[in-house]
């Protein structure tokens, strides 16, 4: 069972629908017990970094960190991926999980922000999440802040500067783009996650 974390921010219908389409058993939950019972966890999210405050209020942060320790596959999407880093300039009062080093920042003033639309991926060899995804595949983004490129980045995109499109280490995965909205390539990425 895949637990999709619902912390009260945004619309989870599309993420749920995509996994259901792939035949996965999914539950949308805000209950730490359900997170503990799941064998895969998806941490979606759109909107403002401050929305992540809700994680602390209902014990979800702790249950997700336990899932990381238990080596359950975890996939952070968009804001969910940003939470895997140390934090964001968007809201310095809220700490990320610091599973990956670095802070999320705004795009340079030379480009339009938010970054909305389809952008191409420069993919590193060896990613399990992006297995079989061709170089330069287009994926759909909508965000104003981005994570830095780090050693664990498995794909990058460019918008005024290079930023992390996908990151992974052991069983922790993150994507800044929306696989559930990225057509066939996005579904293939979610299928990879289901098979890890």
């Amino acid at each position, binding site marked *: 069972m895949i637990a999709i974390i619902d912390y009260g*921010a*945004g*619309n989870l*219908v*599309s993420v749920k*629908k*995509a996994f259901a*389409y792939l035949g996965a058993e999914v539950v949308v939950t805000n209950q730490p017990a359900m997170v503990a019972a799941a064998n895969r966890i998806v941490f979606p999210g*759109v*909107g*403002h970094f401050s929305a992540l405050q809700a994680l602390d209020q209902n014990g979800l942060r702790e249950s997700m960190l336990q899932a990381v320790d238990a080596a359950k596959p975890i996939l952070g999407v968009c804001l969910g991926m940003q939470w895997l880093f140390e934090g964001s300039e968007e809201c310095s009062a809220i700490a990320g999980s610091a599973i990956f080093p670095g802070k999320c920042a705004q795009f340079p003033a030379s*480009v*339009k*922000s*938010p*970054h*909305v*639309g*389809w*952008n*191409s991926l420069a993919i590193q060899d060896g990613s399990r999440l992006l297995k079989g995804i061709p170089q330069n595949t*287009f994926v*759909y*983004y*909508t*965000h104003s802040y981005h994570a830095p490129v780090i050693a664990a980045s498995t794909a990058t995109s*460019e*918008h005024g500067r290079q930023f992390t499109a996908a990151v992974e280490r052991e069983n922790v995965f993150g994507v800044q783009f929306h696989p*559930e*909205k*990225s*057509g*066939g390539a*996005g*579904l293939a990425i979610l299928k990879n996650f289901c098979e890890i």
Partner: protein
Amino acid sequence: MLTKRIIACLDMKDGRVVKGVQFQNLREAGDPAECAGEHARNGADEIVLLDITATSANRRTLLDSVRSTARTLFVPFTVGGGIRQLEDASAVFDAGADKIAINSAAVREPELIGKIAGRFGSQAVVVAIDAKRVERNYRVFVAGGRISTGRDAIQWAQETANCGAGEILLTSMDRDGTQSGFDCELVRAVAEAVSIPVIASGGAGSPRDFIEVFREGRADAALAASIFHFGIENISQLKRQLHDAHIPVRWPC
């Protein structure tokens, strides 16, 4: 590199896709779920479904159409028409929309933009602006283009961005359905006045029109309905031509 988006718009009446010329003389074009799926397969970067005769009476029809369209659609999906309050937006999101488009309701109550953005994020809120040239200015019209608000379109675009809109869907009423080209002057004026993406709409007729609206109009995305529905312009061929003209697009896709 961020690509320019080609968006297929489905204008819907009583659960069927229709398209008119300058908001009138509606012609029928099909089932929304089928049309959306076909456009996505042909390379549409996004689908917009607008219920052009939205009333409370056919709200259930709209939600049913949204649900059936969203079921197998895995590109961004925007729904507009008759969204008057936060609850209407919530119902449309629950049915599977990724973004909602509001027009008249935003003019009547600009705070609604922030209310929906506060709950679902700015990326989920598209403000649709129907603009018409009146003497030397562009004015905002509502109620399917029937009522003039007297507002200046460029100022209103800035105001919606300040209120929390994530994108602007800008329709030139003068060009809508005419296939005589986008109003690049209007699009550019708005695109330069706001930092959020601007989707140009109204007037698409040929690949040249798309090239112009991206180059001259500085549009982030371009939307068309009639030319795609009646097979006049295949989206995948259109994108190939844009690619050949060095406009960055998602192609092949």
